[in-house]
């Protein structure tokens, strides 16, 4: 607070009458008037975001889809503040707290570096009367251990590189796992498989912190038992959870966690696999991969090396737009998710018919809305 940056305030304060100076200093030093005790949410951050003129809202996919100011980043935080203060208990206010695709577009423009998706996690955890649809997600996850209906049993296998497919691959995008297995085989890599439970991201995001811990414990234990020094994930969210959220919440993974695009690039660079591809495609940057994990160039490098004529959309790299499935929005608010997916799909299709991405959820969003999309692993393994 007293850095050079605030010299102008200190300078002004020094020229103020003594009584004003004393009152101002008292406010600055105590400054806890708006604190709400006993919350998981970061109230200071919620207040800062709620007081902002909403300078990131133009880039918020949910607002763009809904056109409702309440769904804007700052709009949600204004309501969140009232919820946390106990001033508001309406169902629609609680439901609003789940209208976010956790894409971090807001963070790109925030002078405080806030991600509304991150702020909402604490608020959701504080809500006692969670909407029934949200409770259902938790109950199903606790029963099935993966999100969605598992229809691909990979079994367990010993090896050097542990492959973690993730819920979407196991339920809806089996071909991505098949492609990864093909790549491992082509490269003569001994891959390992474990009894996968969801990485816990939906539970963590939706505010079920205790339940999340059980999932983290299971996965950490299984990864340790595999003895592998490297874990390769097809899903950027699983990668992010293992690399960042697990350690932040006290769950250490000793292995090196890589996203499949990072791993595949290393195989190509080491000459372990060789692929020739003809054709033109557009690449979609998954939000979590490019913004939370800073992986922008690796997928592009792969595509370049295998001969793809790569097309770029205006909103690429960290300026990417969400596919609509981020932050479990496809489950909590399917109609918003669909609008976001269609908007992004339209932009991508203006460049090429075939979309390549590096996230099973993004691929699903595009396919479910009429697009033709492939995971980068499928392209490298050879699309069949």
């Amino acid at each position, binding site marked *: 607070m007293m850095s*050079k*940056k605030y*010299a*102008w*305030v200190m*300078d*002004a*304060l020094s020229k*103020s009458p003594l*009584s*004003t100076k004393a*009152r*101002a200093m008292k*406010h*600055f030093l105590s*400054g806890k*008037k*708006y604190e709400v005790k006993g919350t998981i949410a970061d109230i*200071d951050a919620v*207040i*800062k*975001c*709620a*007081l*902002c*003129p*909403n*300078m*990131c*809202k*133009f*880039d918020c996919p949910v607002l763009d889809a809904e*056109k*409702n*100011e*309440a769904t804007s980043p700052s*709009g949600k935080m*204004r*309501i969140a*503040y*009232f919820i946390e*203060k*106990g*001033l*508001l208990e*309406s169902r*629609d*206010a609680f439901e*609003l707290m789940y209208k976010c695709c956790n894409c971090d577009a807001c963070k790109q*423009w925030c*002078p*405080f570096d806030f991600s509304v998706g991150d702020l909402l996690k604490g608020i959701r955890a504080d809500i006692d009367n969670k909407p029934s649809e949200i409770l259902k997600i938790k109950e199903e996850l606790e029963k099935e251990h993966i999100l969605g209906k598992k229809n691909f049993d990979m079994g367990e296998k010993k090896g050097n590189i542990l492959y973690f497919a993730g819920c979407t691959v196991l339920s809806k995008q089996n071909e991505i796992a098949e492609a990864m297995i093909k790549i491992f085989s082509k490269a003569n890599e001994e891959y390992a498989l474990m009894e996968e439970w969801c990485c816990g991201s939906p539970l963590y995001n939706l505010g079920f912190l205790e339940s999340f811990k059980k999932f983290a414990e299971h996965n950490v234990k299984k990864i340790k038992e595999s003895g592998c020094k490297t874990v390769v994930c097809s899903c950027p969210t699983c990668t992010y959870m293992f690399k960042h959220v697990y350690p932040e919440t006290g769950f250490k993974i000793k292995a090196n966690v890589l996203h499949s695009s990072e791993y595949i690039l290393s195989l190509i660079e080491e000459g372990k696999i060789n692929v020739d591809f003809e054709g033109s495609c557009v690449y979609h940057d998954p939000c979590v991969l490019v913004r939370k994990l800073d992986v922008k160039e690796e997928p592009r490098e792969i595509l370049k090396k295998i001969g793809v004529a790569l097309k770029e959309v*205006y909103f690429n790299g960290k300026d990417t737009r969400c596919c609509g499935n981020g932050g479990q929005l496809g489950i909590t608010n399917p109609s918003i998710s669909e609008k976001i997916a269609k908007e992004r799909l339209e932009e991508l299709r203006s460049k090429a018919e075939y979309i390549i991405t590096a996230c099973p959820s993004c691929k699903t969003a595009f396919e479910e809305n009429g697009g033709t999309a492939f995971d980068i692993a499928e392209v490298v393994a050879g699309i069949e």
Partner: protein
Amino acid sequence: MAYDVIYKGNKLDEKILKKLLSVVPGGISIKESDRIVYARDYWPITLRWMLDGKIPALPDCIIWPENAQQIVEIVKIACEEKIPIIPYGGGSGVVGSAIPIEGGIVVDMKKMDKVLEIDDSSLMARVQTGINGMNLERHLNRKGYTLGHIPQSLYCSCLGGWLACKAAGQFSTKYGKIEDIVIAMEAVLADGTLIKSKAVPRSSTGPQVEKLLLGSEGTLGIITEATLKIWPYPEKRAMLSFAFDDIARALEAVRKIMRKNVYPAVVRIYDENETLRHFYDVKEAKNKCMLILLMEGCKELVDLEEKVASKVCKNGIPCGEEPVIHWLKTRFNVKESSEFIPKGFIFDTVEVSIAWKNALSLYKAVISAMRKVEGMVIASGHASHFYPQGVCFYFTFGGIPPKGKEAYEFYENAWDAIMEACLKSNGSISHHHGIGIIRAKWLKEEMKERIKMLKKIKRAIDPRNIMNPGKMIK
């Protein structure tokens, strides 16, 4: 309800709601959370109210029309039932214009956000008014153009708000203010009449009556579409900055640049306190006043403007490009409200305009008046929009209400002090933020006899007083 509502006056019933629903099926909300969010714009005192658990005013409902015809129908229903209508764009106004103080229907324009046409040969774009400013500028940039209208609220405001509140952007010294940029408009008036003007550069066909809507702050009608001037994206940018011993010398330098008919896109002069606030890292600017200049456009013209401006500013200390780059990087960082309001500070900014001959005296009078307000800590200013005839000063005040005074009392004292000082110095009480609630009581003195004309116009266009009632004129 566990929260307080400051302005009360709701009146919508089930029957009217049904009528509205027949016009915009599924496009209406009466949810409590939506009504709370649409209860205010960005009038700074409402931020303090929010922290204190107070809502400025609750609208009865929010409605999202998708075309002008639906707005016509909505307005007709509101007119028949005498229900207030509050047009809403980005909600970024800072004087309370969008607060539904008598309840009513908030008409959110965000679904009308398309760029309908770009006419390259005529350098015009036809755009729906619900479009967000940054999304419009990005759309134009992708096609190789710029609008040149870059207010600090670019990211959170929309075209309709710019027109209705008579906005000015940071690059306005070159590209003009919104009234210079707009060519034609389509609007729905208070009785449901849809008007359209022609997209021609000029016409001598009597008063351009549609232009009454510029600055009307939603009190006469809803602007639904506008044709705007656009420009090819600039080939070159040049940046200069100079530190002057005092604000008088900096103002004089800019006045001389303007007299030469040279129009840099960005011209900003910061007083000593604001120089310390924004350029604390520039050693040459310590205890001085910073002037930054940004020229853009075709290369030859920019080179010439740079040459002329450098020559005129020879009495200042050249500080190079860096301060301008710093300004470009930080110009949208609006952190102060978030940082200081929770600490009990009451903040606001007030912009006024003045002819050159009274410019310096107005600046001094306003700073002095702000400092005299009990509890004031920060009283500073910069000049941000320039003309050969005068300048816009943009003042910032911040302080802590003295013992025994409520937040609003201190806030109003500060505003009154600034408005009085401005009027005494022959300034206009607003350059580009508008009137809204906070300036309404000063409008009579500003407009003198003209206020009667404004009232007559309002009565003629909106006899049932449904359009944003309680604002500007009561």
